[in-house]
Every structure is written in C-alpha cells, then in structure tokens.
C-alpha cells in the first residue's frame, strides 16, 4: 500500500521552460515533505522541503507547493536547465520524533530537460 505516489514515471521538458513534478500522499498524518534529486550512480541529494503548516516554499529556481486538502504536492523548476535532468523523489514524514520519524519515498520521476 503506497503512501506516497508519483504517478508520472517520466517527464520531458525544453530548456528554459517550467518543469512540474507531482506527488500525492494518502497518510493525512504526514506533516513534513521533501524533494530529492538523484543522478545515476550517486546517492539522492536533498533539494527542498515544506512543513504542513505552509503551502509554499521557494528556493531559487525551485518551489514546492502543498495542498493538504487534496493531499498533493508539486515541485516547480523555473527555468529548467539540462543539469536538472535526474530522477526526482518525493518523500514524506511524521515529525513527532522517536520511532515515528522516518522518510517514506515515492517511486520517482525521471526528468529530462532537452537543450
């Protein structure tokens, strides 16, 4: 039973345009959400996060939007660059600490930015 879902296995966009990656979750108790980027043969690297008390967080070209009522978040990359080509993972967690704090990941979306 997948609690974090990325329904698009791949996405292709032109350089300079916007990339929008989507993620849905089923556990309403999740209160912290993260996006990771992964290049081949490397470990995932943290990109941006958002707490459930916010609906938007921005960091340079990257913006994450959270819609709690829809249990949906999205990552916007503007403008997209060829170096952004990677697999993007959405992750969610419970921030209560103790044994409950663990990251649950989606299956990932392969983003290809074409020059």
């Amino acid at each position, binding site marked *: 039973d997948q609690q974090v879902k*990325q329904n698009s296995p791949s996405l292709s966009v032109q350089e300079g345009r916007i990339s929008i990656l989507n993620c849905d979750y089923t556990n309403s108790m999740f209160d*912290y959400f*993260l996006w*990771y980027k992964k290049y081949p*043969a*490397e*470990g*995932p*690297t*943290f990109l941006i*996060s958002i707490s459930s008390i916010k609906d938007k967080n921005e960091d340079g070209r990257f913006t994450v939007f959270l819609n709690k009522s829809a249990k949906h978040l999205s990552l916007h990359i503007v403008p997209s660059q060829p170096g952004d080509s990677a697999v993007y*993972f959405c*992750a969610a967690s419970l*921030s209560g*600490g*103790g*044994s409950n*704090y*663990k*990251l*649950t*990941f*989606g*299956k*990932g979306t392969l983003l290809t930015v074409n020059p």
Partner: protein
Amino acid sequence: DAGITQSPRHKVTETGTPVTLRCHQTENHRYMYWYRQDPGHGLRLIHYSYGVKDTDKGEVSDGYSVSRSKTEDFLLTLESATSSQTSVYFCAISDQKGEAFFGQGTRLTVV
C-alpha cells in the same frame, strides 16, 4: 557533503552467504536508515534506527537484520543472501526534523 560513508561500494556474493554492509557517520545524527533502490520501486525502507540499540523494521525488512551499537555505525546484514536482494543499498542519516543525507550507495549482486 555530509559525513556519511558506506562500505563496501560494490560487492558480488553467492546465494546463501551472509553479507554485512556498513554505514558510518561523523555527524552525530540520531536517525539512521537503510533503503534499497530497485527499478520501478523507488526507495524502499528496510530498517531504521532512532538511537543506539533502538531499531525498527521498514516496509521490506524480511531477510535483513540491523545493529547499531554506537551512534556512528549502522550495520545491515543479509543473513542468507538471495538473488532478490540484488539491489543498490543506500544508507541515510538525519536529525529529528530535517532532511536526510544519503551515502553514495552500495551495489550488491547476488549470484
């Protein structure tokens, strides 16, 4: 880069043999995790630790055990390796609230 090291980076082993993967951190983070990455499955949590000697199962824990005898080391053991455990294994560390930092991964092949 976060101070997290996985060893070995690559390993080929035979079916039925025990295998231990090591994760070492220098960040003094409380939480440590073992994930596996497989095509079509993303990152799946095997086991995690929320303190020394405090561990719990993730979603794909069958066939794996872990130990954490000190803050900096988290060991993953495949008690009797099977071909289905051929995968890329990632260790990660985190504070109670915040992003997790990942190691470079261990590519394990069970033949």
